[in-house]
């Protein structure tokens, strides 16, 4: 199987988020970047599928040179090769079109994305990619089985699950459940050593049109200090009369 995992490079979940003085962009000073947590589930699923069916895993990122350590980490975890499409992602449609151009010119059986990037919380790229390629797409994918050229994919829907069946290639937006938390792999020494000699190819970007513009970023107003109460009756009273929450 030819497996593609689309990786986005995002601030670590513990990062304190600040914006530059003009409020135009993230202030990346002191921010540690990681593989998007949702993409880790998809990458691990790709490793499991490769172990079961054979094949090769490509990891792909649309981004600048600063994302290469993240791609190297994916190689250390077990991907076979990495590709970086050299562009500064401006919005989801631009990223989806770059991915589409690469995928159309190559042969992949399965395209694994994460449900959402935890930076801009778009939850857009994978569904756009499916639509641009006219391939089936399953969002919030928590289970995936492949049998020859057909696939069964289960996605979360409000209050439950839906299972879809169709033929490959398929695009999924993965999350916890696709593999279990305990199955996630961290790079070991051997992985890190071999990752250095695995190919990381840089391709030039071909798209430039964007559909949206970020005007400004602000931090949400903080909460004023907590009101500690001694009794549940007082709490119910405050929730009803003050907060109007019940």
């Amino acid at each position, binding site marked *: 199987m030819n497996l593609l995992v689309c990786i986005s490079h995002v601030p670590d*979940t*513990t990062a304190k988020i600040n*914006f530059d003085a003009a409020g135009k962009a*993230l202030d990346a000073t002191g921010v540690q970047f990681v593989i998007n*947590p*949702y993409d880790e589930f998809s990458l691990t699923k790709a490793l499991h599928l490769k172990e079961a069916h054979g094949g090769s895993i490509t990891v792909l990122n649309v981004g600048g040179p600063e994302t290469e350590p993240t791609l190297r980490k994916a190689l250390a975890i077990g991907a076979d090769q990495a590709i970086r499409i050299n562009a500064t992602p401006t919005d989801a*449609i631009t990223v989806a079109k770059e991915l589409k151009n690469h995928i159309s010119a190559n042969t992949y059986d399965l395209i694994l994305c994460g449900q959402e990037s*935890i*930076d*801009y*919380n*778009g939850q*857009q790229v*994978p*569904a*756009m*990619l499916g*639509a641009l390629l*006219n*391939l*089936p*797409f399953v*969002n919030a994918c*928590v289970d995936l089985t492949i049998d020859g050229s057909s696939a069964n*994919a289960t*996605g*979360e*829907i*409000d*209050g*439950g*699950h*839906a*299972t*879809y*069946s*169709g033929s490959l290639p398929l695009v999924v937006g993965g999350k*916890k*459940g696709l593999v279990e938390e*305990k199955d996630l792999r961290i790079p070991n020494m051997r992985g890190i050593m071999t990752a250095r000699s695995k190919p990381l190819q840089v391709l030039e970007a071909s798209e430039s049109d*964007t*559909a*949206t*513009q*970020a*005007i*400004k970023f602000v*931090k*949400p107003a903080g*909460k004023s200090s*907590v*009101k*500690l*109460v*001694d009794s*549940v009756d007082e*709490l119910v009273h405050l*929730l009803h009369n003050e*907060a109007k929450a*019940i």
Partner: protein
Amino acid sequence: MSIIVFVEDWNNQYKKASFEAVSYAKSWATEAGTTVTAVTSNGATDPSTLATFGADRILTIALNATPFGMAQQLATMAEGATGMVIAGTSLGRSIAPALAALAGGALSTNTTSVPSSVSPVVVERGAFSSKGIETIALSGGIPIVSFVPNSVGIHERAGEGTVESGEATGTDLMTITEKTIASGKVALPEAEVVVSAGRGLKGPEHWGMIEELASVLGAATACSKPVSDIGWRPHSEHVGQTGIQVNPNLYIAIGISGAIQHLAGVSASKTIVVVNTDAEAPFFKAADYGIVGDAFEVVPQLVNAMRAFKAGQ
């Protein structure tokens, strides 16, 4: 030249988020000086109710089964539309980006405001897991907004709408082989009240009181990540930065420490109540009201107090 709003139904009944979607479309349409066209399944029980939230024209169609098929159907109506609105339910979140790609749209997801300007459309949206608010302009194509349920509210208006049946074609690329929905439960992303518990509860056998509190309040239940990782509760209840992001009017956190990753998914809640034995738990800094106390004492008392309150309503 209308604002087109997709109206989702569940077993032929409209969801609350659908009324919010029509309300959203109406405020946008009023600013833009145009009308609202609601597109809905021809199986839905009472399409004319959509007029009370602002739909001028209600178009019922035979809806495809999968999000992609629905996105194709909506894309056939995009030409000439002033804009499109979809609630950010799980279905909406699968449809909107596909629609944007097919219709050449400019999409804002995770939107938390109605447009502050309509030409171009400018809205606010949550970014960096509620650690930031982005103001975004939708200028490079037909503007499409997917909003966070429960963020802009439902507004009833006096108004008349016409109901007509129409046609739109789309192709389902997959077949649905199974669909399971937990019955009688409030869906987390849409819930107005969420009762959530963490590792402080010590074991899955103690969730009875959490479910009881939730049922008294008509709330959805949620949990912290470790609780779903160890299998005390299903994955689908995990809230936070890497789980479901919620936006209720009231979030009650019981025995949860308030780690930054947990807060990232719940801090948009309008009112937050924390119950924790540890007065130093970080969650108190993000809370509106707090009780420093043992969940095993406080929660049963709270169930009784809430039950009494509800009975007196």
